[in-house]
């Protein structure tokens, strides 16, 4: 049995004791909750600099209106965005989720600006974009393409440098920031700044350490390449399909962005011709921390505690307190096998 640090803060002693009794065996059985603190809250929890919130801005662009037909409509971006928003709210306790469907350039910028204003110190902020992307081969500059983009007029696009600036502003305020971009050439956002391999997560202090440090991470659906729109008629792009697959079938209460991206990269590469990439936003203060996804259903629903009575904070306490009681492991849900669609490079022979 691995040991995990935690501290429980409650509004009163009774609640504290009750919560410890109810949750401690479950949390220990999940094996990975180091550095995560739980506390009871009132339904309308006050927001302050000491409280962390999970916030997300989800953008999906299908209905392109380009009169030049340079940007044809997409099939799955809106569905992808809705599914991501749903899973974040339902499984991962994102409280502040804004979904933008078929967004124009100004709508995207206004939404990011609004999100930035809401962010406080310990927040975890996720931006997701699904839509057309563009790489100017002459200047090597990448763009998101909003639905009101016109032909090759770059001024109607959303430049990578602008996206990075906005992300930088959010990152200055948030504890953890994660950008997920499912568009062609989205790898150009990374500027070659990538992380090493995901470290072993078997060590007790891993989550504690990475949650304590600031993170500004980026996951992209591909490198500098085209990416597919509809994976095996699933209604999702390959990247988002496997992203959803990982998030929904994740059986751990805690999964980091690097773990998530590693699994998704592998699955996408195994099943399509695109190669997702991940890394950090250069110059935004990333301290090799990790955006942490907390799957609350595992920890909370087992004991029947209402979600609105439990708040999970990802800022880490230095405590190494260990709960010694063991509890039976929660039953694992079977992993859904992804539909088969393979790219078969010809068998090489001499």
């Amino acid at each position, binding site marked *: 049995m691995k040991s995990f640090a935690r501290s429980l803060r409650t509004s009163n002693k009774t609640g504290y004791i009750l919560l410890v009794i109810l949750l401690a065996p479950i949390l220990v059985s999940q094996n990975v909750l180091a550095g995560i603190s739980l506390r009871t809250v009132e339904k309308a929890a006050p927001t302050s600099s000491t409280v962390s919130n999970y916030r997300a801005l989800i953008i999906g662009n299908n209905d392109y209106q380009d009169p030049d037909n340079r940007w044809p409509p997409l099939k799955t971006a809106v569905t992808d965005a809705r599914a991501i928003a749903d899973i974040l709210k339902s499984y991962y306790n994102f409280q502040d989720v804004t979904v933008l469907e078929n967004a124009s350039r100004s709508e995207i910028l206004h939404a990011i600006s609004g999100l930035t204003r809401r962010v406080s110190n310990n927040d975890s902020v996720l931006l997701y974009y699904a839509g057309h992307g563009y790489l100017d081969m002459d200047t090597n500059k990448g763009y998101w393409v909003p639905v009101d983009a016109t032909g090759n007029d770059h001024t109607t696009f959303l430049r990578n440098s602008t996206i990075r600036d906005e992300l930088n502003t959010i990152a200055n305020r948030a504890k953890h920031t994660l950008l997920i971009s499912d568009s062609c050439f989205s790898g150009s956002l990374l500027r070659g700044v990538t992380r090493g391999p995901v470290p072993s997560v078997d060590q007790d202090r891993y989550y504690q350490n990475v949650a304590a440090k600031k993170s500004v991470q980026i996951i992209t659906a591909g490198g500098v*390449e*085209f*990416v*597919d*729109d509809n994976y*095996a*008629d699933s209604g999702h792009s390959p990247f988002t399909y496997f992203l959803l697959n990982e998030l929904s079938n994740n059986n751990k209460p805690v999964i980091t962005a690097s773990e998530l991206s590693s*699994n998704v990269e*592998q699955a996408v*590469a*195994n099943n399509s*011709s*695109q*190669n997702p990439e991940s890394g950090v936003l250069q110059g935004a203060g990333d301290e090799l921390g990790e955006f942490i996804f907390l799957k609350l259903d595992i920890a909370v629903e087992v004991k029947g505690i209402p979600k609105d009575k439990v708040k999970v904070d990802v800022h880490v306490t230095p405590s190494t307190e260990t709960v010694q009681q063991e509890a039976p492991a929660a039953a694992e849900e079977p992993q859904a*096998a*992804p539909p*088969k*669609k*393979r*790219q*078969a*490079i*010809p*068998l*090489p*022979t*001499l």
Partner: protein
Amino acid sequence: MNKKNLIITTLLTFGLIMSVHSRAEESPLDVTFGVNLQPSTWKGDNKPSGTSFDANATQLQLNLRIRKGGFYTGLSFQGASFDFDGAAPEQVTKIGINIPSSNTTVERGEFDLVFGYYFWKQVSFFADFKRITNKWEDTGYSARYNGLGLGVTGWHPVSQNWVFFGSLGFAGLDIETGGDNIGDGDVGTLVLGFLYKATNHSQLTIGLKSQQQTYKFDNGSEQEHGIVGLVLGYSYTL
């Protein structure tokens, strides 16, 4: 190519493969059947006699590939009858006599057993246990060329449905006839092509394949062979 070095290199490669954490543990198995047509030209020289030979044929190739994670293995059979109008490759008997051959048909067959691993997402190294069989119709003489080779293959997407791919490799060969070794040789192969993802399960390929072989017989004679052709393929992944 030094065959001892080749075998050692192969063993080291597989040792390295086995030491790498396998992606296969979490990856689904995929099975692909493929068929290729290869309109090919077989040209070459009989070194001592100075004769050159030249024939065309369309080779049929059937292959099976099984992939799990980064690992893959596969079998390939291909062959055709090449009709030589004029000089043909000389037949070197096991007692060391070169029998000139002309206006004949050579039935050529190739068998490959391939093992490979993707060390990177788009690049893999593979080992190929290869056997080539040539049978001359005029005399019934046949020779086998057995060997082990190593190669590298890679791919890169160029659009949503098109993928560029290529492979390069070399193998050392033992030449046998009637159960006796009569020489050795080597083969180098280059393949470049494009794959088109027609459906979720079907792929079409078009490419060029160049196979260059050099045979050195124990009787001192040599032959050079070059088989170059277009590769038109279809494959289906279960």
